[in-house]
């Protein structure tokens, strides 16, 4: 059966700003918009903003999960600040939790126990806060992957992508700071880990440690300082960046998946008001509800079991929250490389995986849009998304990066893998050492093959329709499957993408033989990259091919439907 891949032609699609589907929004919200219009300097697009249409696809809601969990974090975080005491002064616990009575601990830890056991609803709020933090970063990463794989980071949205990268980094630091606040055994072990990272910075490491901890680890200062960072500095930055992110989103409008009627100049979907507003509002409550359920049903960070931080103690299963797991993993599996030069120690075993990998995790995503644009030489605006299969090299690169990240991440839980799957810790570590390099390469190749097969399938569908499941027996005894033609809408969707040509090396001289001077010349490396990037694809069928296939289709039931597909190499010569 012909299954439309993405667009249901029966469904009336709201189109804005060109079409009047959003007039309701304009009239209902006109007053407000008008008011804003008169006052805010950027109001040139204010009116359009409220009528802005949002496309409907589940993956577009990932960013909203991140936004809503951030709001939940703000709400629950404020609740926690009422009782939390950011102090490392040592006291003897005399509270309600019997199994800690008389144990020396910091006020921070004691107040966390108090929130958990003496404040009504405190434990629930703590658990909601922590689950929301887990969700917040997870949703950001998932959202970022959606943006990456659909090419939504391309012009004009590079800036917003950069803001997103910043948000993710800040979110990770914010989460880490929060994880350190309760001053339990895991907090302290995590801080000890970071202390090691800081000290591994060549030359200035020790100095930086003294600066941050106000002396030697752990000192008395780090929790008050982290508290300031956690409830003021980073939330402030996050709020500012989130606002800028949303403002740019409104300004650029949303991207949409390709399909009939979906152009670079419009956005097809539900108008922001009222349908989208209702949906988004409803989704906020769903996110809140799910987070509360998680807080109510699933225990997280049971600090009373870890006990107060004591540098003499450590527990099996000491791990950071998941978003720091890849750094933990890298440090767990790196061989013990260290230099001793002229009385200085160079801890590559920590600096490389720790600082190096974290740096890479910030820098690679940040520069990717610019690198891709440089390779393709693409300067046009993009409001229609790519199907990931239509950008095989980008998709393969993304999957390779995910694989690499995922393997480092798994290495961070190497002990848990060992006990849960009954394998040897050393074997897990050794296998991971190889896999973090081999895995991405394999992932790249496999993903690219899958993309190309999917492109071949598209090619096939456009030319020959979808398989009908009807097997026809020919007079001569042969069998073949009849194909049903696909709808025009689907054919459009499958063939609308551009196939930009590769950049050519600019000749040394112009056509009159005069040597070119300066300017933007395309070097041979860039041309080679560009050719590789552009040619890794199956050319979409040409109009003639489609016409011919349509003709051929008339006879389909009589002839065995055997046809050849272009190979990748053949496609490259198109």
């Amino acid at each position, binding site marked *: 059966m012909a299954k439309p891949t993405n667009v249901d032609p029966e469904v009336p699609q709201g189109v804005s700003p060109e079409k009047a589907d959003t007039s309701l929004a304009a009239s209902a919200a006109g007053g407000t918009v008008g008011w804003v219009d008169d006052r805010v300097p950027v109001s040139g697009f204010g009116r359009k903003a409220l009528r802005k249409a949002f496309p409907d696809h589940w993956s577009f809601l990932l960013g909203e999960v991140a936004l809503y969990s951030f709001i939940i974090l703000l709400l629950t975080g404020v609740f926690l600040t009422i009782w939390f005491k950011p102090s490392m002064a040592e006291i003897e616990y005399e509270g309600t939790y*019997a199994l800690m*009575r008389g144990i020396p601990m910091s006020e921070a830890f004691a107040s966390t126990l108090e929130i958990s056991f003496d404040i009504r609803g405190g434990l629930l709020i703590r658990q909601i806060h922590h689950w929301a933090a887990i969700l917040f970063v997870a949703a950001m990463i998932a959202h970022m992957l959606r943006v990456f794989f659909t090419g939504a980071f391309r012009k004009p949205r590079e800036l917003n992508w950069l803001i997103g990268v910043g948000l993710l980094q800040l979110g990770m630091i914010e989460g880490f700071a929060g994880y350190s606040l309760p001053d339990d055994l895991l907090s302290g072990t995590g801080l000890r880990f970071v202390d090691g990272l800081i000290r591994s910075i060549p030359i200035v490491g020790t100095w930086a440690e003294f600066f941050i901890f106000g002396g030697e680890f752990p000192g008395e200062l780090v929790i008050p300082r982290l508290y300031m960072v956690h409830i003021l500095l980073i939330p402030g930055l996050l709020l500012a960046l989130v606002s800028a992110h949303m403002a740019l989103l409104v300004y650029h409008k949303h991207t949409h998946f390709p399909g009939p009627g979906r152009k670079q100049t419009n956005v097809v979907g539900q108008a922001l008001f009222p349908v989208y507003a209702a949906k988004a509002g409803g989704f906020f409550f769903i996110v809140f509800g799910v987070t509360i359920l998680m807080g109510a049903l699933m225990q*997280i960070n049971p600090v009373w079991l870890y006990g107060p931080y004591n540098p003499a103690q450590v*527990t*099996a*299963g000491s791990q950071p929250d998941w978003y720091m797991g890849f750094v933990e993993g890298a440090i767990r599996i790196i061989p013990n490389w260290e230099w001793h030069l002229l009385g200085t120690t160079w801890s590559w075993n920590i600096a490389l995986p720790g600082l190096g990998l974290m740096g890479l995790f910030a820098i690679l995503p940040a520069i990717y849009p610019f690198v891709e644009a440089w390779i393709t030489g693409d300067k046009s605006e993009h409001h229609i998304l790519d199907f990931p299969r239509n950008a095989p090299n980008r998709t393969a690169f993304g999957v390779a990066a995910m694989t690499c990240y995922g393997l480092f991440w798994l290495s961070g839980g190497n002990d848990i893998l060992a006990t849960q799957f009954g394998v040897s810790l050393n074997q897990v570590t050794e296998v991971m050492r190889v896999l973090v390099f081999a895995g991405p390469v394999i992932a790249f190749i496999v993903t690219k093959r899958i993309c190309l097969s999917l492109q071949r399938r598209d090619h096939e569908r456009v030319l020959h329709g979808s398989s009908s499941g009807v097997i026809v027996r020919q007079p001569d005894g042969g069998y073949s499957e009849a194909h049903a033609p696909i709808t025009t809408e689907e054919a459009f969707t499958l063939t609308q993408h551009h196939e930009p040509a590769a950049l050519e090396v600019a000749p040394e001289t112009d056509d009159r033989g005069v040597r070119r001077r300066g300017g933007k010349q395309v070097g041979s490396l860039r041309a080679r990259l560009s050719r590789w990037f552009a040619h890794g694809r199956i050319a979409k069928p040409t109009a003639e091919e489609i016409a011919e296939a349509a003709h051929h289709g008339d006879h389909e039931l009589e002839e065995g439907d055997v046809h050849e597909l272009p190979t990748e190499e053949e496609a490259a010569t198109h």
Partner: protein
Amino acid sequence: MRSPTPKRHHKAARLLLVAAALLVTGGLYAVVAPATSVAAPTPEETVARGQELFAVSCASCHGLNGEGAGLLNETAPSLIGVGAASVDFQMRTGRMPMANPYAQAPNKQNTFTAEEIAAISLYVASLGDGPAIPDPGQYDPSGLSAAEVAVGGDLFRTNCSACHNFQGSGGALPNGRVAPPLLDAEPIDIHEAMRTGPGEMPVFADGAIPDKDVRSMIAYLDQVHAQPSAGLTLGGLGPVSEGFWGWVAGLGILMLFATWITKKAARK
């Protein structure tokens, strides 16, 4: 069967005689046999019995005289001086006799009777001095104050959680070894394990952690395992399982909702 003086006896006499004989032997047996088992065997007898059992079940690995490196297993340690507590722990928890000589002996169902274990323990103890099987008073966790139990928790986190995890959920050690979960460990197991240091586990001798502290630690573990948790514990493994469930249950469920909500609207 002709009696030399048949006429002087009643017909039934023969039957009676047989019955009497049976009665006497039966009675005698009933009197004598329990007597032999009630009379406690001398320690020498028990050691001999232990040695017999040892020769059958253990000597193939530990050597005929417990000197270690037996025929079957080069790596089996010498048992001279490991003490009765070690044998008692290893056998009651089903670790010994080891089934697979290459892996860490798992904690499994023990198939020996208490007497057999006692006999072998005594035999091994006779080979050299070592920790004795503790009396209940040495490991009984009852009757401790809350503060003492809390100290037990602190001691547990200082000495044990590095391998066994913060609430005794177990953990991985190098080279395929594991520190097992302690959720089902009996008080006597904990005491004996500390005093004898099975496998990779270090010995925690009386001088380092006296019996009273061992009792506190046992009490702490008991109470921590008995107290209610704040929801599903997700394995009690720490942040790794939390992150896993955050993604799967949290984001996963939300994405199902997202699919539903976007589908719903498109249909209008």
